[in-house]
C-alpha cells in the first residue's frame, strides 16, 4: 500500500518551461492521493497559462489503457514541453516509457504504508522511497533499475551496457544517460550530491 504526497510546488513548477500536460492517477485513491491539494496546484498552474491539458484516470500503470488515452490527447501533449504526472512512481515510469522523447516529471513522492501490497504486474517498480528521484533521472527509477540503487550515477560495473549483477539486465544508468540525452536534460547529471534519507522509507507516511 502506498501514499503519495505532493512535492514542493515551486520546485515542480520550475520544471515547466512552457506548458505542461498533466496526468492525474486516481487508481489508488483509496490508499491516499492528495486530490484536493493537487487540484488546487493545477488550478494555479492553469491560471498562469502553464497547462495544455489535464487527463484524470484510473490505474495509469496499465500500459494499454494509458497508451490509448495518451494517443487521444496527442495534440495537447505535443503542445506541452513536459508531462507532469501526479501518481506513484510506477505510474510516472509507465508514462515516461510511452513518451520517450518527452520530458516526464513526477509531481509526487511515494511513501510505503504497512499492510497489503498494491498490484502492479509490470516491469516497472517503485521502491516507495518517499523522495522520488525520477525528475533527476529521466523518468527511470535509479533505485529499482540499478542493482545497487545508486543515485549519483553509473558504477564501473557495466559490461557491454549490461549490469555486473545480472547480465540479462541493462545498466540502469546507461538507460538514464541515454534518456536524458534524448530529452536534452543532461544538465541534471550535474545536480548536487544526492544522499538517501532512509527515514522517509520505513513507514514514514504519517
Amino acid at each position, binding site marked *: 500500500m502506498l501514499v503519495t504526497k505532493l512535492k514542493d510546488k515551486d520546485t515542480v513548477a520550475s520544471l515547466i518551461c512552457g506548458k505542461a500536460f498533466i496526468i492525474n492517477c486516481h487508481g489508488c485513491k483509496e490508499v491516499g492521493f492528495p486530490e484536493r491539494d493537487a487540484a488546487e496546484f493545477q488550478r494555479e498552474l492553469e491560471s498562469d497559462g502553464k497547462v495544455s491539458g489535464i487527463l484524470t484516470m484510473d490505474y495509469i500503470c496499465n500500459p494499454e489503457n494509458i497508451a490509448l488515452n495518451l494517443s487521444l490527447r496527442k495534440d495537447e501533449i505535443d503542445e506541452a514541453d513536459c508531462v507532469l504526472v501526479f501518481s506513484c512512481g510506477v505510474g510516472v515510469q509507465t508514462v515516461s516509457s510511452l513518451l520517450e522523447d518527452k520530458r516526464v516529471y513526477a509531481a509526487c513522492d511515494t511513501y510505503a504504508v504497512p499492510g497489503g501490497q498494491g498490484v502492479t504486474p509490470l516491469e516497472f517498480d517503485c521502491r516507495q522511497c518517499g523522495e522520488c528521484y525520477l525528475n533527476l533521472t529521466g523518468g527511470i527509477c535509479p533505485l529499482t533499475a540499478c542493482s*545497487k540503487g*545508486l*543515485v*549519483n*550515477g*553509473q558504477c*564501473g560495473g557495466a*559490461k557491454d551496457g549490461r549490469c555486473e*549483477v545480472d547480465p540479462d539486465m541493462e545498466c540502469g544508468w546507461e538507460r538514464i544517460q541515454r534518456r536524458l540525452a534524448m530529452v536534452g536534460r543532461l544538465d541534471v*547529471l550535474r545536480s548536487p550530491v544526492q544522499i538517501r534519507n532512509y527515514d522517509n522509507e520505513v513507514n514514514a507516511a504519517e
Partner: protein
Amino acid sequence: MKITDRFSKGEFVVTAEVGPPKGFHVDELVSEAKEYLSDIAAVNVTDNQSSVMRLSSLGFCKALKDAGLNPIFQLTCRDRNRMALESDLLAAALFGIDNVLCLTGDHTKLGDHPGAKPVFDLDSVSLLHTVCELEKGRDLGGNELVGEPPVFAKGAVVSPCSDSVDAQLAKMERKIMAGAEFFQTQAVFDPERFISFMERAKQFNVPVQVGVIIPKNVGMVRYMSQNVAGIVVPDSVIDELKADKEKTKAGITGVEIAARIIRECRPYCQGVHIMALGWEAKVPEILKLAGI
C-alpha cells in the same frame, strides 16, 4: 604523506596496490611490499576486493604505515553504512593515514558471500562528499567533530575503456564536484582508447593515473577481456602473449607489455597505478623498462 602533494609538484606519480590476505598473518606481504614498493609514492590497499572477504583495508594500511610505506586507504560503500564509513575515516586519521580512495564497490553477489546484504547506503560520490564534510569538522548528520578535523588526499576511480564512456565521464565530473582530487583508472591495455578518453577528461584538470595490470598469460587476459567490466584487451596483446610461451611463463612478455603501455600513456596523464595481482616483485623492473 598526501599523494596530492606529489601531483602538485608535477611529478609523474607511481602507485601500486596490494590485497590483504584472508587471514591476519601479514608479515610476508609487508616485507614483500617493503622490498619492492618502498620507492614508489604510495600503495593502495584494497577493500574486500571483488566482494571477497579479507583482512580489512584499514588494518592492513596500518601495518604498511608502521613498516614505513605510504598507504592509500581504499574504501567501498558495499559493506558499511554512512556511520561506519565515517568512523573508519576517523580511525584512518588517527593512524596518520591521509590518502583515501573512494569507491562504490562490487556487488556482494559477485563474491564469496553472495547472501550478504549489499549496503550501498552511500556511493562513491556521496562518500567523497562525506570526506569533505569531515574535513570541515562535521559529520553527515551535521554534528560537530571534537578537535582538529582530519585532512585527506581524496581519490576516485574511472573506467576509461568502458563501453559507457559518456556515463563514465558524467560520473567523473560528479566525483570532482563532490571533492575528488585525483583519479586512478581501471586497467588499460589499449593506449589509444585511453588517449582518446584523456582528450575528453583533460578539461577537468584533475590528475589521472593510468591503471596497468601486468598480463600474466593468455588465459588471464582473455578472461578479463570477456568478463571484467571496463577491460578491453586488443588481439595484438593476446597474440603477443601467445607468441612466446617460454618468455610468458617467466613473466617477461607481460612485464614488457606493461612497460610499453606506461610509456605510451605517460604523455597524456599524471601518473601510473600498477595492479600487480601478486607480481609485486616485478614492479621495479616494469618501471625501469618504462623509463621511470
